[in-house]
């Protein structure tokens, strides 16, 4: 539905002070519409900054941020409309819940959009279903929920605005494996069902490999590698040179292949490896 493009974008923190830090350095990038794109990189590689540029929370120092070919800063008064189109879930979004019930909190975004009550309640239910929140939880206070449930409620709060581009900064950080899977699967489902573009920021290669179509690798404020999942993971050596690695299971598959096991090239999840090995054994 919507394409996000960065053109020679740079961003500097604390410009003009001795603590000047270049967070983004001449970054050009196109995120393909309707796909799930993972942005991966170490702490301080510029991932989170990039994400805040996408919906106009921060203004780039140089370059342009384009949404469907139009500069989002062209008319700053329209920024609110941009923010409804580009939904952003920040890191640890559970700390922004504030309403009395989960339902009211998820409805907060759509209500700000000025939708009617019927549409709002439809969207709330739909968003809650995406992230796997049971309907009976909707009437509870956000503070009676577990950490993982709160996280899911916060993500649903952004999904309920039905953004054309859904951006999530570390949506799975600090969760147990099961909670992580529920969230990432829900996000993927949201993208597939609504045709929206999804951008996930993470530092976990395993998650990226399992849930993303395209991958962008950030390193020292620059784009280091970008392409489809297969393209990026075929550069295992270069990834290792910046301290990132292909998923462990991919690593294992490569080792097995070297020993003469006829496995396909692209194995990124344990399930895929299991299935391949099973067919081989039979």
């Amino acid at each position, binding site marked *: 539905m919507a394409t996000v493009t960065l053109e020679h974008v740079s961003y500097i923190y604390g410009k003009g002070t001795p603590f000047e830090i270049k967070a983004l350095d001449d970054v050009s990038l196109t995120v393909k519409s309707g796909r799930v794109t993972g942005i991966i990189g170490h702490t301080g590689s510029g991932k989170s900054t990039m994400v*805040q540029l996408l*919906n106009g*929370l921060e203004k780039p120092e140089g370059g342009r941020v384009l949404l469907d070919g139009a500069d989002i800063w062209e008319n700053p008064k329209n920024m*609110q409309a941009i*923010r*409804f189109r580009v*939904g*952003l*879930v*920040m890191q640890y*979004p559970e*700390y*922004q*819940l*504030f309403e009395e019930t989960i339902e009211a909190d998820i409805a*907060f*975004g759509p209500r*700000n*959009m000025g939708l009617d009550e019927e549409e709002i309640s439809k969207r709330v239910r739909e968003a809650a279903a995406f992230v796997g929140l049971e309907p009976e939880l909707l009437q509870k206070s956000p*503070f009676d929920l577990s950490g993982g449930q709160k996280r899911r409620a916060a993500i649903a*709060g*952004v999904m309920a*605005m039905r953004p054309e581009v859904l951006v999530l900064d570390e949506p799975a950080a600090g969760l147990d494996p099961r909670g992580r899977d529920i969230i990432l699967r829900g996000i993927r489902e949201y993208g597939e069902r609504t045709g929206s573009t999804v951008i996930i920021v993470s530092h976990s290669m395993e998650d990226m490999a399992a849930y993303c179509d395209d991958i962008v690798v950030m390193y020292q404020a620059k784009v280091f590698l970008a392409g489809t999942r297969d393209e990026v993971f075929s550069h295992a050596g270069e990834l290792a040179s910046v301290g990132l690695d292909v998923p462990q299971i991919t690593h294992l598959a490569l080792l097995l292949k070297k020993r003469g096991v006829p496995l396909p090239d692209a194995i990124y999840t344990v399930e895929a490896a299991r299935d391949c090995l099973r067919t081989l054994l039979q």
Partner: protein
Amino acid sequence: MKLILSILYIVCTFLCKNVLSFALLLLSAVLLLLISRIPPRIVLRSLRALLFVMLFTAVLNLLFTKGETELFAFWRIHVYVEGVYSAVFMLVRIMVLILSTSLFLTYTTTPIALTDAIESLLSPLRVVHLPVHEFAMMMTIALRFIPTLMEETDKIMNAQKARGVDFSSGGLIKRAKALIPILIPLFISAFRRADELAMAMECRCYRGGKGRTKMRVSHLHASDFVALLMMVLFGAAVLYLNRLGLFYTL
């Protein structure tokens, strides 16, 4: 020690009563600034923050001080020479006040040293069972968490902006309402932080001031006494100049 000296200095600024003593005051402030080697830009910025208050007091003094020699009258406003003097004096006084406190306390003293100082100054009150150490600890913690809370506010604000909150338009009531989604999460996280901090402190066996020793014990050095001596001289000079009663006296 530094704390006592700054308080003395502030007292002196209020003792100043005529042109000469004010000139001395201004001179001393400038000298201190030079010695401290703080970039003038930062000092000016701290002054600018209180510019409005300064101007307001000056104008009030200008308009409402009654004297004998009228400078000029406009409509029902009478401006007297005395008013001009007191306005200028007030301005200088506030300026020096801000300069000296920011100079002595904020720019050259760490918050920890400051609370240590408060603790030791208040320690005589321990006799009347005042929890002096706890006060000082509370102050340290409060100071420590100001930047953290500011950062937190920023984050929450961004998150709510992303959900379409508009902080910059609408009437007063609408704007106040827009703050609710920020304040509630902020309070909650502040309580959570307080809880976690208390837990962490207990895990490290913190149990209040009794029998607690200091990591950095401050001693009085020769330079402290030199500073005290200079302060006394300065105070005496101010008092002496006041008695001269040259030019105009308040």
